């Protein structure tokens, strides 16, 4: 009863100042609308970029690097323990890039509860030969269906299908750059020669495009067994292991223990892609900075209209207090006016934000880097709408609080005497 009565008075006041009320509400609409639009778009981009990285990058990449040994034999010689030893011109010892005991390691990783999958790869260098053209390139032997499953390899196949490679014994997926340079298409044959010599004919069953031109100009994929066969190595010969985890947070510690236990190199995704985290943070920062600025401006609009209303309704406030309305009642009237403006403006803002993001969502966005994406990425997370309306309510509450406190404290005697 009391609340309805007070809200009725609040409403009546706002209706007499409908123009200013609407302008104040539009200020909030603007702030919230931009917040929703910006945050949906920015996080959409973030997610796309993140998933781009997360989908195709292994969480842990295990390989064997040829590098000079960190400890030299002299360090083991106790006679020279406390002296400074200078060893010049250290060269790495010749060794294979092969991962020792790769298959047991993969089995062990796959048995780990934190691991979604560990996939073997064999990376070799070769020449592509087609007629008189010879091109230097890279060939990766992979387990194609598992790559599709764990690393979204399918997103980058622009011609052909993953199944085709699996089912073709001597098939190859050619990088789009390689295919273009050599004027090759699906169904054609290509010859490759390995560094050790030997020429092998392969059938092109698909073209892939990662979006990174440098890579697409040299890289190709074939079945692991095919690559092992043409390099003349046994089927336990593996140069890389790519690991995908359930929880990316575990990557750094697991990488460390893998490297330590197996004397291998193991790089985790967080270390390899530190700069992406920064990009995400900065985009979020911009979004919130812009939205908060707009809301502060909107807040001043509300502060203004309330002060104006309170000034104009001084007599009403005095009479309300004289006839038995308490200071709290009067404060409630003016605070609820601010909140009404905030709710109306905020809801409109959500609507405007939704419409704008839908609009952006429909704009075509085609890029070589992302063959599966056709329009701008927008994130329609309902959380942002909840945050948006809370934002509107909190900021209008603060904008309305001081003026309403002033109204609460107005002494009716002073107003009545002043007449």
């Amino acid at each position, binding site marked *: *009863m*009391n609340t309805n*009565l007070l809200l009725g*008075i609040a409403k*009546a*006041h706002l*209706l*007499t100042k409908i123009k200013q009320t609407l302008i104040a509400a539009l200020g909030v609409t603007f702030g919230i609308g931009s917040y929703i639009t910006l945050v949906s778009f920015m996080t959409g981009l973030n997610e796309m970029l993140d998933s781009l990285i997360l989908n195709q990058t292994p969480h842990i990449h295990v390989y064997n690097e040829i590098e000079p040994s960190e400890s030299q034999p002299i360090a083991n010689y106790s006679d020279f323990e406390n002296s400074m030893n200078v060893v010049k011109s250290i060269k790495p010892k010749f060794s294979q890039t092969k991962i020792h005991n790769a298959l047991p390691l993969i089995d062990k990783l796959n048995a780990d509860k934190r691991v979604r999958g560990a996939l073997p790869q064999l990376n070799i260098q070769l020449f592509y030969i087609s007629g008189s053209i010879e091109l230097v390139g890279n060939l990766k032997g992979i387990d194609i269906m598992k790559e599709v499953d764990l690393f979204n390899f399918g997103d980058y196949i622009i011609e052909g299908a993953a199944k085709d490679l699996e089912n073709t014994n001597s098939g190859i997926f050619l990088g789009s750059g390689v295919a273009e340079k050599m004027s090759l298409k699906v169904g054609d044959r290509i010859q490759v020669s390995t560094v050790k010599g030997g020429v092998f004919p392969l059938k092109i069953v698909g073209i892939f495009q990662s979006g990174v031109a440098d890579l697409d100009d040299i890289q190709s994929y074939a079945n692991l067994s095919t690559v092992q066969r043409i390099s003349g190595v046994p089927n336990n010969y593996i140069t890389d292991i790519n690991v995908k985890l359930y929880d990316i947070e575990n990557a750094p510690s697991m990488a460390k223990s893998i490297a330590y236990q197996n004397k291998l190199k193991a790089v985790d995704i967080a270390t390899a892609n530190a700069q992406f985290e920064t990009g995400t943070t900065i985009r979020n920062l911009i979004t919130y900075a812009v939205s908060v600025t707009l809301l502060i401006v909107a807040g001043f609009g509300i502060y203004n209209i309330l002060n104006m209303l309170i000034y104009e309704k001084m*007599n*009403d406030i*005095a*009479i*309300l*207090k*004289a*006839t*038995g*309305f*308490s*200071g*709290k*009642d009067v404060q409630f009237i003016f605070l609820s006016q601010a909140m009404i403006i905030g709710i109306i403006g905020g809801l409109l803002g959500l609507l405007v934000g939704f419409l704008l993001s839908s609009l952006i969502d429909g704009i075509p966005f085609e890029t070589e880097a992302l063959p599966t994406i056709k329009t701008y990425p927008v994130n329609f997370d309902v959380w942002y709408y909840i945050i948006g309306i809370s934002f509107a309510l909190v900021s209008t509450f603060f904008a309305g609080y001081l003026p309403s406190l002033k109204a609460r404290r107005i002494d*009716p*005697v002073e107003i*009545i*005497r002043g*007449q």
Partner: protein
Amino acid sequence: MVLEAKKINKHFRKPVDFHVLKDIDLNIKNGEFVSIMGKSGCGKSTLLYILSTMDTDYEGELFIKGQKISGKTRDELSYIRNKHIGFVFQFHYLLSEFTVLENVMLPAKKLGEKSLKEIEADAMEKLRILDIEGIAYNKASNISGGQKQRVAIARALINNPSIIMGDEPTGNLDSHNAQNVFSIFKKLSVEQGLSLLIVTHDLDFAKKTDRIVEMLDGRIIS
């Protein structure tokens, strides 16, 4: 006894210390119609603001219907004003966005003791007593000064208060309307046994009341 004031003293401290009310003792009996007279600046309005509980900055004791008022919280005082006191000002403060009827209903809605229907019926009844039921649905901003003052009286009556206080309620009206308002007060006093305390400069008006309280320089002299 509707209203009892014991040894009320009030000082204005700004700009200089000014002892505006000195040892005011005042009793109003049930159903009594009392007028306050005195030169301009003698403290009549100041006293009325204290008696109506709007001003709490004073020394002394105030009782309404035997209940001690001094020292109560602001919220308690708001309730007491709402329930027990009807106030009529020289200037007829109405909420201009609302109709006459809504203005009259407002204090009763705040009190919240009756249903909306009952309140509306009560309000119409008060408007009828004041002979202005015809303008019940007019906007409060669209009626004459005399009508406004009668609406203000109707509003003061809506919660059937223990006492009506008025600070020169006819001061802003022409003699015809002033006469009209006075007869309304007289009628309320006689017919409904209402207690009234009215500040006025109009000696003819005052003479027709039950008792005249005369003030001089912050004291009651008779």
